């Protein structure tokens, strides 16, 4: 079983594409943007590479130990998505990753100085970078499990996070207590949000690709603003 490890990630490996930064601002990928806007996107990507200090922590965890974290303070939705997925999972790993404080600080400075355009673009770049860190850890866990022949070619690894899909955000407390991500500079606020804010945490769930397929018709799905599960499920279908 994989021990707890700290990973340093190159910022350049996380920088989102210009199109995805614009899409985060509600702009259509095919839409023609003014030159100043495209310049701001390029500048934001450069600033992200310059300022981001991505780090991650990851540890494999057994099902029984994870169950205590998942149950948290007993505030999960009934049922929550992971109630169906976890019993079918073959391997689990806890993760947390951050792009660091400097980039967040710079976003604040840009808004303060009136450069809303670059501030918003850098904000989107940092959010995209944190998401990409999550995907990178998914791939890393999948590659390792595959190399060790612990999962097969039809298996998939996906990340699930407290605060989404019925897993109550208060479980962050238990997740942090176990993972101790303070070593990568992450702390938890009273509201269970992470500091620095451009960070992710969650559990990597390995198992047959079909366990990650579900109908997004849970009661909490109607309130979900991202529906990012659809893109994820699409990824699985493509691999199949």
């Amino acid at each position, binding site marked *: 079983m994989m021990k707890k490890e700290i990973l340093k990630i190159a910022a350049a490996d996380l920088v989102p594409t210009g199109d995805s930064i614009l899409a985060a*601002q509600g*702009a259509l990928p095919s839409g023609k943007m003014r030159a100043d*806007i495209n310049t701001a996107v390029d500048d934001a990507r450069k600033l992200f590479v310059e300022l981001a200090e991505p780090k991650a922590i990851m540890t494999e965890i057994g099902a029984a130990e994870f169950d205590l974290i998942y149950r948290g303070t007993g505030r999960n939705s009934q049922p929550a998505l992971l109630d169906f997925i976890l019993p079918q999972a073959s391997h689990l790993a806890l993760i947390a990753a951050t792009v660091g404080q400097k980039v967040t600080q710079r976003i604040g400075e840009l808004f303060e100085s009136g450069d*809303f355009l670059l501030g*918003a673009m850098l904000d989107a770049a940092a959010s995209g970078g944190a998401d990409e860190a999550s995907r990178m850890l998914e791939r890393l866990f999948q590659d390792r499990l595959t190399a060790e022949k612990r999962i097969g070619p039809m298996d998939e690894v996906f990340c699930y996070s407290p605060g989404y899909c019925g897993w109550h955000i208060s479980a962050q407390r238990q997740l942090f207590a176990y993972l101790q991500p303070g070593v990568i500079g992450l702390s938890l606020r009273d509201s269970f949000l992470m500091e620095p804010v451009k960070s992710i945490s969650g559990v990597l769930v390995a198992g047959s690709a079909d366990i990650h397929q579900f109908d997004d018709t849970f009661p909490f799905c109607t*309130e979900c603003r991202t529906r990012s599960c659809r893109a994820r499920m699409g990824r699985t279908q493509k691999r199949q």
Partner: protein
Amino acid sequence: MELLKQISQSLQDGDDEKVASLTKDALTAGMTARQILDESLIAGMTIIGNKFKAHEIFLPDVLLSARTMYAGLELLKPHFLKDDIPSRGKVVIGTVQGDLHDIGKNLVGIMLKGAGYEVIDLGNDVPPAKFVDTAVSQGAAIIGTSALLTTTMPMMAQVAGILKERGLTGKIKLIIGGAPVSDAFAREIGADAYGFDAVKAVEIVDRFLAGR
């Protein structure tokens, strides 16, 4: 007048150098800072806001114009101070505790500044009492709270509750906004208004502060 129209158009075009240059020209020509603000910068941002509301332009276009507005505003600021011209009013804004989503809140702040208000932006993950404490200490007549998550909506009710406890209901107006909230929710928690979008939020602030 033509000069003011040119400033407004340059703001809409996102040309900050031209806005700065024309603003200097307008000041040299003897126009007042208030006139330039109201009839060019605010007028331009209002057009931009309405175009955004009508889905004719994207958020980055609004942000570009907002940056351009700042180029003009920075030149006017010394004149406001010198002539002791007060802002149109103070508004405290923030995303409620437990919520990090602040694109909408930032846009409201930008549009309010563009409309000539002084905006005290508390950021995100703001505890309910901090909204009220800040409004009281800063003499702000309006609090604007934003939430994207349904789980954080109750924090808005807490802000309304604190205003009530302290006898400030009606004295400090509470506006709520964000994807999951509605007019009905505003009425339910005792908020004074629901701002569907940034343009609407400015209209509400205008209305609330008009009678003061």
